[in-house]
């Protein structure tokens, strides 16, 4: 059954948007790591790559080059990750050449995202993670319109510590307030780099910006994730996050964040069920 407005409430327990405002802070990496963490905690997880111009999730999860199959009631999500347990949808699966540029204007992007939400047979999921592009435009509005009516949708904001990123994330926070999107917290990514040679920590992208923003806006600070070169190297060596050596410093930090998020979403879902 596709994720239409009825299926939304019945089949998907919680929806988690991963937002930023700033590009390149690691939204997709965080989305994938959160998905893998939720899977390892025994949850049924779906991951929607709503970044139409730069769909990176398939590459990160070892699903690059796969195609979408059509079922009787709609598209079947691609199964990826450990034991093919993650349901995944990305525009990359619809391209004949996976590296083609998607040069679309707003209405076409809006239509695509709405199709992803209404025409994909997600099945029963505990959590559907939606990875978004930077900014506050057509894709974001389309996602929120498609999720309208779902009782448990919330967002996690990702930033890097530096002022330029924090400024954009502040705007994204305002966007969340204006659209009535509950913000579960802020993740500060690329927070400090530990030299593998001498163990000296250098704050290449500054320090503490995300935590200060969380305090300033009275939002929960979920934690800092260090800059881990092994994550970038994993993909460059044609592996993916699901088969990388587990529990590097970044993975450990994100697993802890996933546990906090899961607890919050479960509480919200229980409240929604009883009301």
């Amino acid at each position, binding site marked *: 059954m596709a994720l239409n407005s009825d299926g939304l409430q019945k089949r998907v327990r919680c929806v988690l948007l991963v937002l930023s405002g700033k590009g390149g802070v690691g939204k997709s990496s965080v989305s994938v790591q959160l998905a893998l963490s939720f899977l390892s905690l025994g949850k049924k997880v779906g991951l929607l790559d709503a970044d139409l111009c730069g769909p990176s999730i398939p590459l990160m999860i070892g699903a690059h080059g796969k195609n979408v199959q059509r079922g009787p009631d709609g598209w079947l999500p691609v199964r990826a990750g450990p034991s093919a347990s993650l349901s995944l949808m990305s525009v990359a699966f619809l391209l004949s050449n996976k590296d083609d540029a998607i040069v679309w204007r707003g209405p076409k992007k809006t239509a695509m995202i709405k199709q992803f939400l209404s025409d994909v047979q997600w099945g029963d999921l505990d959590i559907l993670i939606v990875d978004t592009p930077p900014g506050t435009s057509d894709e974001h509005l389309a996602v929120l319109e498609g999720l309208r009516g779902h009782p448990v949708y919330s967002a996690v904001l990702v930033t890097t510590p530096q002022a330029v990123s924090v400024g954009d994330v502040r705007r994204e926070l305002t966007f969340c307030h204006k659209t009535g999107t509950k913000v579960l917290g802020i993740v500060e990514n690329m927070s400090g780099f530990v030299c593998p040679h001498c163990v*000296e920590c250098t704050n290449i992208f500054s320090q503490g910006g995300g935590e200060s923003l969380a305090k300033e806006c009275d939002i929960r600070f979920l934690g800092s994730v260090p800059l881990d070169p092994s994550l*970038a190297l994993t993909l460059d060596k044609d592996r993916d996050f699901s088969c990388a050596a587990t529990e590097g410093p970044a993975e450990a930090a994100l697993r802890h964040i996933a546990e906090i998020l899961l607890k919050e979403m479960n509480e919200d879902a229980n409240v929604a069920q009883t009301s």
Partner: protein
Amino acid sequence: MGIRLGVKARLVICCPEVFTAGWTQQYLRCAVNLLPRHFSTLKEHQKKLMGRGLPKQAPLPGVKRIVAVASGKGGVGKSTTAVNLALAIAANDPKVSVGLLDADIHGPSIPMLMNLSGNPEVTKDNLLRPLVNYGIACMSMGFLIGDSQPVIWRGLMVMSALEKMLKQVSWGPLDYLLVDLPPGTGDVHLSLCQHVPLSGAVIVSTPQDLALIDARRAAEMFRKVGVPVIGMVVNMSGFQCPNCHHQTHIFGESETAKQLGLDVLGEIPLHISIRESSDRGKPIVLLLPGGAEALAYVHTASKVVKCLERMASS
């Protein structure tokens, strides 16, 4: 009765009762001979219809060259590169005048990077006057909205805002106008190419494959719309630990940049001073002009200018 030719034309036989195998070939030959002329007329007609409503491309008065700084991937340092390139072009030749347009409507970074704030004045011709710092004339959505105000606009409004920031700004005589584009390949990029003639595009990327895939998409987009791609700036190319000087390629060291078939215009190292200077609103080219990072930008700017001059003369 009809015969489908290819996927675009249909030959309708009006009198099937007189149709024979021998006549089929003759009729088909006639039809095929007629088709190219009709197709080209049809194509022109379609182009004319679809061209209605599209913006008319026109140069900006007084602006000699417009250069897009794009990436595809977010967070690779487009804005930092655009700012430092603008300053480096001006530093290399004090006679040239340079402007900087921040086309990232949703996440404008130029105000912070150039230490500019405040609302632009309006001239008596009802044009916005760009804000100027370090000798560079700048325009950004960030000057028109509050610090924490999101721009929750769909594509149509974004296109309109870009058009205003291009054409309703009193840029004055400029030798170079650099346009800092947002990540992606969408409304802003298409609208920019439709509104003004671009002299070229500089693609910024980090060395990791994930960023280079998006960089390839951006380059392909420019090629499709007929904008020459000048080359690529490889940003965050390596990090040297300030303590032990050990070199780590945090964002990879892929050779794919060269495999994309793009000239590498420069490689900018990942150095804490670039971020610190950016956060302070004094770009590295000005803050530490003799440093390796600033020199990397100066060298890159020189290559960009030479490429543009070569393209213009050919």
